C-alpha cells in the first residue's frame, strides 16, 4: 500500500502524523507549529483550488501548501492519546 500523506486527507478527515520528510530547518518550524510525529491532525477547509490546505493541529489552525503537506507522512496504524501525543 502506498504511503498516505497529509495531502490525502479530505476535509474533516483525521490522521496521525508519522514523520516529516523535509530538511531539518523546515521540520523544526513545522514542529513548532504543532506538526510533531505522533500527533493527530485533522484537515479543515482548504483555500479555493485546494491549495494551501488548512489543518487543525495541536489546538490551532495552520495553513501550509499542498506541496508541504505531501511531505508529511501519515501513520495509518497508530493510535493516539487524548492529548495528541504518542502513547
Amino acid at each position, binding site marked *: 500500500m502506498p504511503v498516505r500523506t497529509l495531502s490525502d486527507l479530505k476535509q474533516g478527515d483525521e490522521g496521525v502524523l508519522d514523520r516529516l520528510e523535509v530538511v531539518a530547518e523546515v521540520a*523544526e518550524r513545522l*514542529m513548532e507549529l504543532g506538526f510533531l510525529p505522533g500527533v493527530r491532525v485533522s484537515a479543515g*477547509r482548504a483555500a479555493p483550488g485546494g*491549495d*494551501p490546505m488548512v489543518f487543525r493541529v495541536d*489546538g490551532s489552525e495552520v495553513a501550509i*501548501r499542498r506541496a*508541504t503537506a505531501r511531505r508529511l507522512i501519515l501513520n495509518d496504524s497508530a493510535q493516539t492519546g487524548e492529548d495528541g*501525543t504518542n502513547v
Partner: protein
Amino acid sequence: MSELQAASTGQTPPADPNTSGGFSLVAVVGAPNCGKSTLFNRLTGLRQKVANYPGVTVEKRLGKVRVESGREITLVDLPGIYSLTARSEDERVARGVLLGEMPGLAPPDAVLLVVDSTNLNRNLSLAAPILALGIPTLIVLNMSDDLRSRGGLLDGERLSEQLGVPVVQASAARGEGLEAIRAFVSGRSTAPQRLELPVLQDIGSRRRWAVHASGQSGYQAPAASAWTRRLDSAFLHPLAGPLIFLQGVWAGVGSVLVFLPQILFLFVLIGVMEDSGYLARAAVIADRTMARVGLEGKAFIPLLSAYACAIPAIMATRTIESRRERLATILIAPFMTCSARLPVYALVIAAFLPEKPLLGPLLGTRAAAMIGLYGLGFLAAVATARLLKSTLLKRQSPLPFTLELPPYRWPTLQSIGLRLADRSLIFLKRAGTVILLTTVVLWFLASVPRTDGQPPEISRSLAGKMGKAVEPVIEPLGFNWKIGIGLITSLAAREVIVGTLGTIYGIEGGEEEGDESSPGLQQALKQDLTPGAAVALLIFFAFALQCMSTVAVVRRETGGWRLALAQFGYMLALAYIGAWLGKTLVEIWV
C-alpha cells in the same frame, strides 16, 4: 523559595517596597497573536498597534510602568516567537533582546511570559526555553475569559507549583489580572527554582513537558470556536471566498475615489480585516496567486497595507522568513497606490477629465480613471515581482509557506476608532513637518535673489532656475519648468507637488496664496499641460518613488544603500519611460 513562589492565581504576589533595586527592564514575551501588545498597552497606557493576526508587532517597543513606590520600570514589548530559534527578522529582534544581544539595551531582568490559555500545550512549549534563561518570570495566562466561556478548565495554582514560577490568570483585552501583573513587575523576585526542564533542542520533548505540566494542572482545552468554523465555510469557500475578497477590495478602492475623508474609510476596512482574523485567511487565499510571481501568501499582508502607506508595509515584511522573498516584497510594495498619491491624482483628473457617467450612476469617468491608476500600480508590482523571480528570487526559498490562523473575533469600535485617530494624527504630523518644511524652503527659493529689495519674477528665482535646469530632461514628457519645480519638491513626499504648484501659480498670478484645490489651479494646469502631458504626469506619479521616508526605511530594513538606491533608480526609470509612452499614445489617439 521566595514568597512569589506561593503566590499564584488571582492573588497579588507580595512586593516589598522597602527593598531597593527591583527590576528595571521587563520583557513581554510569547507566541504570535497571544495578546502581548494588548497587555503592553494596558500596562503602559501606550497605543502600540494590535490586531488579530500573527506578526503585527515586528519591532521591540519600549514603554514605562509607574509602580506604587513611584519608580518607573521599562517594559519592552517583543514580536511573537515559537521558540528561541529565530528564522525571520522579527524573531531575531525578540531573541536578541531576550539574550541581551541588542546594542543599547541591557538584558531584561524579568520576563512576562504571555500564554494563550485557550491553547496552553503549544504556548507552554515556549516556557521551557524562557525559564531556562534563569530570569525571574511571571506566566500570564491570557484570554482566560475565553477559556472559561468556551468551557475550558485550568488550575493556575497547580500550574504554578508544576513550573515553579508565579502564574496569573488574566485577560488583557478586558483588563483582568492587571493588579497581580503590576505587583510582579514592581517587586523583587528570585530566579526560578531549578526545574526539570526538557531537552531544549528537542521540540518533541519540550512539547511532552508542556503537556505533562498542563495535564497536572487539570487543563482542559476549550471547545473549538464554533463560529470560526462556520465563517470559514464561507470565507474559504471555493467560489464565495475570492468573491467576498474582491468585494472587499472593490469597496476599498471604490471608496477612495471620492477621496480624502474616504481615505479613512479605507483604513476602517483594513482595520476590520486585521482585527476580525480575516486578514490571515485572505493571505491563505492569495498564496497561490502570489506563488505565481514568486512570492508567498504572507507577503499579501504587507502589500495590502501598502495601499495606505508603504512605510508600515515595509516594516511588516519582517515576518517573511525567506530573505529573498522579503526583499522582493519590499521592492514592490511602493508600487501599491498609497494615500499620498490620491491628492495628486485627484487634482490632475479633476482638471482634465470631465465627469460623465460611464456605467450608470455607479461608475463615472473620473472614478474609472482612478481605478485605472490603482490597476497600473498593481500591474507594475506584479511585473516587477515576475522580473525578480527570474533574477533575485531564482533560487527557491527552502522555508515553505506556513501561517497560523487566528480564531475570528469581533473588531471593537474602540480599536477601530483609535486606529483612525492615529492615522489622522500621522496625516497632520506629515502636513506639519515634511510638507510644511518643503513649502517654506520652496517659498524661500522662489523669492531670491532679490534685486533692489524686490523679489524676482518666479522664472528668474532660484526655484525657477532649478526648474529650468531639469526642463530639458522632462521636456519630452510634456512638462515645463514649473512642473519641474513640482517634481523636485515632490521628491520629499508626493503630495507636496499640489502645494508647490499652488504656490508657483499663486505667486505668478500675483495672489497672496494659492488655494490648492481651487479651480484656479486646475485652470492653470490646463493651460500648461496638454492632455498627453497630463497622462504622463499621472503615470509618473504612479511609478516613481518620490518619498524620502520610504527610501530611508528601505535602506534601514535592507541594511544598506545599495537596494534602496537601486529601487529608487528602477522606479524612476520606469516612471520616465511609462510617462513618455503614455504621452505618445495619447497623442497618436487624440
